[in-house]
């Protein structure tokens, strides 16, 4: 895989166009320094690491080094570096002397949640917290300057600061943040309303790509993920939950394994799971495999992929339990009166998160304290779960959150593995218990990306213009499973993410005179949850692949057809054009190569992609992907490009993989049957970062959703217009090579 990244400004009338290649920005990289991670806090006091805490976000040490506190979880997305850049920009410190410090949710709670939300998901890390973390940096700078002003008895307005060195031109005095810190820490914090943040035009560090602050420990292997937790006297637990969702644990025969070496106990964890505790994970896992267990599978054992598909199909045309989120004009009449009618049904399966680090959690519970060490996207949720399970007051509980070996939504929505570890550890007071799920357990008991189908009907007039579009999603609701309070009046708008009328988050880019967008909630017994990109993934496949079918029926070029419908939404158009330009859409391709295009919006950002594929028999080779992203402000372009590249891998997973259901349980339990994108399948990736500098959009998720439809549209072009409508690709006998 090779990749290039281009940072460009899309001309949408907001700012003037400018372009530069990111490699030049890379040259400005700073030193990669360490992390300060609380492996086990003895109290709720957060260490100042030998420095002075100017405010909650900033500690300055006598040697001028600055410690920046970070609330969000790092799972490879680079948010720690990006958030530190936001603080450092306003602080005006020396980036080469910056290090990071994370803290625990207990410490956040003890300080009345001064660091606010620790939840990491929804591509929110930067866009949700950018204002208050920049204010934290600015407030610290103001206090440091006030300290210099008091010492020198000169007005603050006469002081200048650059890279942590404060100077006063008239007197020629200079000093550094390290020398001012102790006095600055004593000053009252300025009211955020009393100062303003820098104009983006004046940014020095934001928009540049200093090296990530967490690269060294990853490369040299010193990084500790949750699964690397090791505590004195620790025992290991392997767990098995009823393979049929909703089934119950009836009984188990512990005598059959109790004489095996190293076995400590077999425990009932909750109504549906049993665990073996041993002195090594291997012994626990091996014993669990032969433990006789009696399950009550319940009525769900009758469910299968076929029975679920039948339910979804019913929802495509039913008048029951369906609502329209958009109803413009008269779709029925428009399509009835159209010259040409196009109709298609698309389908996307359940898919697993398949995190490289399987679910795990280490817990230690005593009579008056409970602690967990767990890689989680939401340490505060883990803390709350431990308190709930143990019944201890939340101040007597703590959660330590090492970096994650993959999250993708799995480690954020539900803290099921934390609850299990605490339930087991409760039965071994004082002994740390490390619960590890096997890969099979991980893939059998995921909170899957929900299954869905979509029926689309379009009408064209005799000029080939789209006069009516009727779109109906029928599928499982995430909110119904994890957050029912987000369903208002029975309407779960989240499932229509990317088709929304309202601007700002996940707006539909097309303007169609007669348009009806509906959702029919059809739930199943399978647990579902957010999967990186969530509903934008499926919704982009449905709409963007169908747009190609409609363009083909109209005899129009897919780009030109989209452009004609998207003119009311200049930012959607901007990224579409950016991807098309970079791909050379109008230039001829080598023989046997075909292009596909797609655009969509999610998480406040605009994305588009152009794929180039060739097909030989049933083998599809994706040669090239050009992806354009407008995330408003681009904090760290190289990290954004990395996220885009990761999005391609994740998007390609979802073309190939499926978690199917037989006898109420998951069939694909490991990578032998659950294919993920391999190195050899990866195309050349060209990222075009096209910020318009007038909003803050997300980065971690938005680009995934255009990967699959762009590739699928190229595949359809290569097959003479025959689309793939029911994923995964193997349903059509196709595979990625």
């Amino acid at each position, binding site marked *: 895989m090779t990749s290039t990244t281009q940072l460009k400004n899309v001309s949408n009338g907001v700012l003037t166009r400018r372009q530069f290649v990111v490699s030049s920005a890379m040259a400005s990289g700073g030193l990669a320094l360490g992390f300060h991670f609380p492996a086990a806090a003895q109290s709720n006091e957060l260490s100042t690491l030998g420095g002075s805490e100017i405010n909650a976000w900033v500690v300055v040490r006598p040697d001028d080094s600055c410690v920046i506190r970070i609330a969000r979880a790092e799972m490879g997305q680079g948010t720690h570096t990006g958030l530190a850049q936001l603080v450092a920009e306003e602080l005006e410190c020396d980036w080469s002397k910056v290090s990071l410090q994370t803290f625990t949710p207990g410490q956040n709670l003890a300080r009345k949640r001064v660091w606010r939300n620790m939840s990491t998901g929804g591509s929110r890390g930067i866009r949700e917290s950018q204002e208050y973390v920049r204010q934290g940096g600015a407030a610290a700078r103001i206090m440091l300057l006030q300290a210099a002003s008091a010492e020198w008895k000169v007005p603050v307005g006469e002081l200048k600061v650059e890279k942590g060195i404060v100077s006063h031109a008239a007197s020629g005095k200079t000093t550094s943040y390290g020398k001012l810190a102790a006095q600055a820490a004593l000053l009252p914090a300025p009211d955020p309303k009393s100062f303003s943040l820098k104009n983006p035009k004046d940014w020095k560090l934001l928009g540049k790509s200093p090296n990530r602050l967490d690269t060294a420990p990853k490369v040299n292997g010193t990084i500790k993920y949750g699964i690397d937790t090791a505590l004195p006297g620790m025992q290991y637990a392997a767990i098995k939950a009823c393979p049929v969702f909703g089934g119950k644990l009836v009984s188990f025969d512990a005598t059959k394994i109790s004489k095996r070496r190293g076995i400590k106990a077999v425990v009932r964890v909750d109504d549906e799971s049993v665990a073996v505790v041993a002195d090594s994970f291997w012994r626990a896992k091996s014993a669990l495999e032969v433990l006789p267990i009696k399950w009550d599978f319940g009525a769900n054992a009758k469910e299968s992929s076929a029975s679920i598909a039948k339910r979804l199909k019913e929802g495509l045309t039913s008048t029951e339990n369906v609502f329209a989120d958009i109803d413009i004009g008269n779709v029925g009449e428009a399509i009835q009166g159209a010259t040409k009618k196009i109709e298609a049904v698309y389908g996307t399966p359940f898919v697993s998160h398949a995190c490289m680090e399987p679910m795990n959690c280490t817990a230690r519970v005593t009579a008056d304290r409970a602690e967990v060490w767990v890689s989680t996207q939401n340490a505060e949720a883990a803390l709350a779960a431990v308190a709930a399970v143990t019944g201890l007051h939340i101040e007597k509980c703590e959660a330590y959150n090492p970096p994650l070996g993959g999250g993708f939504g799995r480690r*954020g929505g539900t803290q099921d593995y934390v609850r299990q570890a605490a339930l087991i550890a409760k039965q071994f007071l004082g002994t740390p218990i490390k619960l590890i799920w096997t890969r099979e357990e991980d893939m059998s008991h995921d909170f899957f990306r929900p299954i869905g189908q979509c029926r689309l009907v379009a009408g064209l007039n005799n000029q080939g213009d789209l006069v009516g579009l009727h779109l109906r999603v029928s599928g499982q609701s995430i909110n119904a499973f994890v957050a029912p309070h987000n369903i208002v*009046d029975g309407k779960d708008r*989240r499932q229509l993410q990317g088709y929304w009328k309202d601007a700002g988050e996940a707006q539909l880019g097309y303007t169609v005179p007669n348009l009806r967008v509906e959702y029919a909630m059809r739930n199943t017994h399978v647990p579902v949850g957010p999967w990186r990109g969530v509903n934008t993934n499926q919704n982009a496949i449905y709409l963007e692949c169908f747009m190609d079918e409609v363009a083909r029926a109209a005899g129009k070029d897919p780009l030109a057809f989209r452009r004609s419908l998207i003119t009311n939404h200049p930012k959607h158009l901007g990224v579409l054009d950016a991807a098309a330009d970079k791909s050379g859409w109008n230039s001829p391709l080598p023989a046997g190569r075909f292009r596909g295009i797609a655009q969509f919006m999610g998480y406040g950002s605009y994305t588009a992609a152009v794929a180039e594929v060739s097909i030989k028999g049933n083998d599809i080779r994706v040669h090239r992907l050009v992806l354009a992203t407008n995330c408003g402000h681009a904090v760290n372009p190289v990290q954004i490009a990395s996220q885009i590249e990761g999005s391609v891998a994740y998007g390609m997973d979802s073309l190939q993989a499926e978690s199917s259901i037989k006898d109420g349980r998951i069939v694909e339990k490991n990578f032998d049957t659950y294919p993920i994108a391999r190195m050899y399948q990866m195309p050349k990736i060209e990222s075009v970062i096209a910020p318009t500098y007038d909003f803050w959009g997300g980065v971690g998720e938005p680009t995934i959703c255009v990967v699959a439809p762009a590739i699928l549209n190229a595949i359809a072009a290569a097959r003479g217009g025959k689309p793939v409508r029911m994923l995964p690709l193997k349903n059509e006998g196709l595979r990625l090579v």
Partner: protein
Amino acid sequence: MNLRRRLLWALGLGWGWGATPALFAQHVSQEELLRPYVGINSAQKGRVKLEIARLADNGFNVPLKVSVQSPMTAQDHVRRLLLLSNRNPRPLMAGFEFGPGSDQVLISTRVRLGGSQTVYALAQTSDGIWWLDTAEVEVTESACLDQT
């Protein structure tokens, strides 16, 4: 048993209060919340103690405890205790009636919370005065889900 419940009546029923509650998608102010249920816009802080964890990993069943200081005599006792939510579609989560026969007012229960919010515990004493305690609860957000 230290938990005495004279009556736990169906949500939204009882004295005809809030029988047709609005569907609140967002937080409502204290004034908006209290008026339909206690007839006034505010209540006195004190006597009521609401214990609920600052964080909940989900809102499905959040444990809480409420106690009210009162001699529980014929002259001076707690008449009513209400649990209100400023974000749930139905703000009245639970209501309890007491009388001088109750030896103490101590409630331990679980409630469902539709997202992060302020929980209100209100007690009316026999002199007609409403007493109040509130608690902020953060129902931790699910990854990748926004507020829609």
